[in-house]
C-alpha cells in the first residue's frame, strides 16, 4: 500500500491537568472514509483542532501527504489540502452564501495587494471566475443553496447552514476533508440527503479522504469504511463498523450514553 495521506503518531494534548488526547495514532489513506466516534468529551473535535493547527499538540506528530505539519499555522495546513467544518457551524454570517463559498476558494486564488491595486481587471476576473466555480459547487450540493446564494448566510435554515459549510470546505478541493458532526441539528430526511451528498461526492472525487466525527449511527453505519473509537482521549478501537460494534470495550464506553 502507498503512503497514507494523513498519519499521526502519539498525539497527546493536555489542557492544564486535563488530558484531552492521549497517545493517539491514526492513519487515513487517500479515498478512504473514516468515522471517529466516541462519547462526549472523548477528544474528537480536539483531534480535528490539532490536525488543522488550531492547537499545537503537547506531544506527538502529524504528517500530511508525507510532510510533517505538526504545529504549523492553520492557513498553511489548509493550503496543503485539508479542509474542515465545525461542530457549531462557523459561517461568515454577514456575507452572502456565495461569498462564503468564494472564500473557500481563497487558497486557490493568488492576487496580492499590489496586483489588486494596479491590475484591477485581472483581480476582478479572478474573483468572477471563483464566483462561477462557487456557483457550480452550490448547484452540486443538495438542497436549494444555489437558489439562496444571494442571501446572507445568517438567514439560512440549520440544515442549509451545515450544507453550506461543507460546500465551503469542498471549494478548496482538499485531499482530506474533516467533517465535525455534519448532521447536528438535522432531521432524518436531511441526514439521508447528506449521506447521499457524501456518496455522490465520493463518486466524483474518488481520491479525496474524508474523516467524519459523528453521533448519528445511521450515518456511521452507512458511509465509512473504517470506524475509530475514542474514549477519554484514548483510541480504543479502529476497525470496520461491524467489528467495532461488537467490541466489548466500545460497548462499555457507550453503555448508558447512546446505545448503538
Amino acid at each position: 500500500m502507498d503512503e497514507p495521506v494523513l498519519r499521526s503518531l502519539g498525539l497527546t494534548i493536555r489542557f492544564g491537568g486535563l488530558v484531552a488526547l492521549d497517545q493517539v495514532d491514526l492513519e487515513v489513506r487517500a479515498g478512504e472514509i473514516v468515522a471517529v466516534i466516541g462519547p462526549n468529551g472523548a477528544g474528537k473535535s480536539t483531534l480535528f483542532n490539532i490536525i488543522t493547527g488550531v492547537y499545537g499538540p503537547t506531544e506527538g506528530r502529524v504528517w500530511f501527504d508525507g510532510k510533517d505539519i505538526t504545529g504549523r499555522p492553520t492557513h498553511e495546513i489548509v493550503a496543503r489540502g485539508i479542509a474542515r467544518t465545525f461542530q457549531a457551524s462557523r459561517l461568515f454570517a454577514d456575507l452572502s452564501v456565495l461569498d462564503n463559498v468564494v472564500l473557500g476558494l481563497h487558497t486557490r486564488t493568488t492576487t496580492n495587494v499590489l496586483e489588486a491595486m494596479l491590475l484591477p481587471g485581472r483581480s476582478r476576473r479572478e474573483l468572477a471566475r471563483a464566483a462561477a466555480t462557487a456557483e457550480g459547487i452550490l448547484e452540486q450540493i443538495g438542497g436549494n443553496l444555489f437558489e439562496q446564494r444571494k442571501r446572507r448566510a445568517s438567514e439560512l435554515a440549520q440544515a442549509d447552514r451545515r450544507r453550506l459549510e461543507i460546500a465551503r470546505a469542498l471549494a478548496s478541493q482538499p485531499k482530506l476533508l474533516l467533517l465535525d458532526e455534519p448532521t447536528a441539528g438535522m432531521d432524518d430526511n436531511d441526514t439521508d440527503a447528506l449521506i447521499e451528498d457524501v456518496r455522490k461526492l465520493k463518486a466524483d472525487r474518488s481520491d479525496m479522504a474524508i474523516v467524519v466525527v459523528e453521533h448519528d449511527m445511521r450515518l456511521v453505519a452507512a458511509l465509512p469504511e473504517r470506524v475509530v473509537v475514542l474514549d477519554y482521549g484514548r483510541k480504543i478501537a479502529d476497525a470496520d463498523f461491524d467489528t467495532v460494534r461488537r467490541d466489548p470495550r466500545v460497548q462499555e464506553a457507550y453503555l448508558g450514553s447512546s446505545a448503538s
Partner: protein
Amino acid sequence: MKADGAPATKTFSTLRAGTVVIGSSLAVAAFLWAFITADSTIAVVALLVLLAAFFFGLERYPQAEAVVVRSFAEARVTAAIVWLVIVLGFPFLFGQNTYFLHLLVMCLIYSVLAIALNFQLGSANIPNFATGATYGIGAYCSALLALEFGWSFWATLPFAALAATLFGFIIGLPSMRTRDAYLALVTIACGVIIHQLLNNFEWTGGPQGLIGIPAPTLFGYSFASPLPVFGYTLPFQANFYYLALALLALSIVVANRLHQSRIGLAWNALRADEIAARAVGINVVWYKVLAFAVDAFLAAFAGVVYAFYISYIAPDNFTFLVSVTLMTMVIVGGMDNVIGVILGAFLLTLLPEKLRAFSDYRLLFYGLVVIAFLMIRPQGLLPQRLRSYGA
C-alpha cells in the same frame, strides 16, 4: 432619491436611469451647497431634519434605494459625467468665500482619512485608535523634509507614505498576539506615544510644531496663488480643493479595487469569524497587518496635503481625539460602505462648524452621536451591501 414608488422589478429605459442619476446627483450637490452656506442655526437644523426624513424614507421604502442603485449601474457614463461636472464646478458656487472653500478642503481630507480607517474598522473590524498618529507622521515627515532639506511637496509624498506605512506595519505586528480590547489598547498606546514624542522632541518643534511649510508648486505655478479659470479667479484654497479631490479620488479607487478583490473579501471574513477565516486558509496575521499598512499609507497622504495646505502643524492636530473623530465618521456613515464613510466625514466635519453657537459642546456632541448610533443604528446611515460578481 426622486424615484420613490417605482417598482424596482420593472425594466426601465436608459433615459429614465439617466434622469434618476442626474436628479439624485444634483439633489445631493444642492443639499451639500445649502448645508455649507447655511448661516443660521435654524437653517442648519432644518437641513438636518430633511436629511433625517430622507434616511427615514429610505428605510421605509427600500425599493427607492434599489431604483437609484440600479440607475447608477445602468447609466454609468452619465453618472461619471454628472459627478465630474459637480465636483469640478463646485468651488465656483462659493465665489470668493474662502471659509466655505476651506470647509470643503477639510471635508475632503477627513474623507480620505475615514476611508483609510474603514479598511480596518469597516472591512476587517479591527479597532485602530492610532489613525490620528499615522496622519501626523505623514504630515511631520513631509514638513521636515521640506523645511530641512528643501524638498518639494511631490518629492516628500512617497517618503511620508513610506514612513507611515512602516509605522503601520509596526503597530500592526502586535495584532499577531492580541485582539479586541488588548489590540485597542496597543493602538491607543501607540497613538499617545507618537503624540508625546512629537511634543517632546526638539527637532519636531515641540508643542509649537513646525511653521512656514512652503506651498506646493506645479510647473512653476504656486498653490498659494489664486486660481484663474476661464477669466474667473478662485481663491487659492481652490488649488488645494482640487489637490484633495484628486487624493480622495485615488482613495476611492484603491478602496474599490481592494474591496472587489480577494483581499477585501478576506478582510470581511476576518470580521465575521476569525477562526473560520483561518480554516479557509486565510493568513489572518498578514491580512491584519496589511489593513494597518493600507490605512497608514492613505492617512499619510492626507497628512501631507494637510501640512502643505495649512503650512503650520503642531502635535495637537494629531491627538487621540482625532482618531476618535475618525472612528465616529466611519461608524455614523456606515462601516464598509465607501459612500457612507464619505457622508459621515462630510457630516461630522461640517456640523461642528455649522453649530458654532454650540462649539463648546462639540466633543460632547461627538460622544453622544457615537453612543446613539451604536445603540440605535450600529450599521450606520448607509449599511454595507452584499457583493455582486462579474458579468
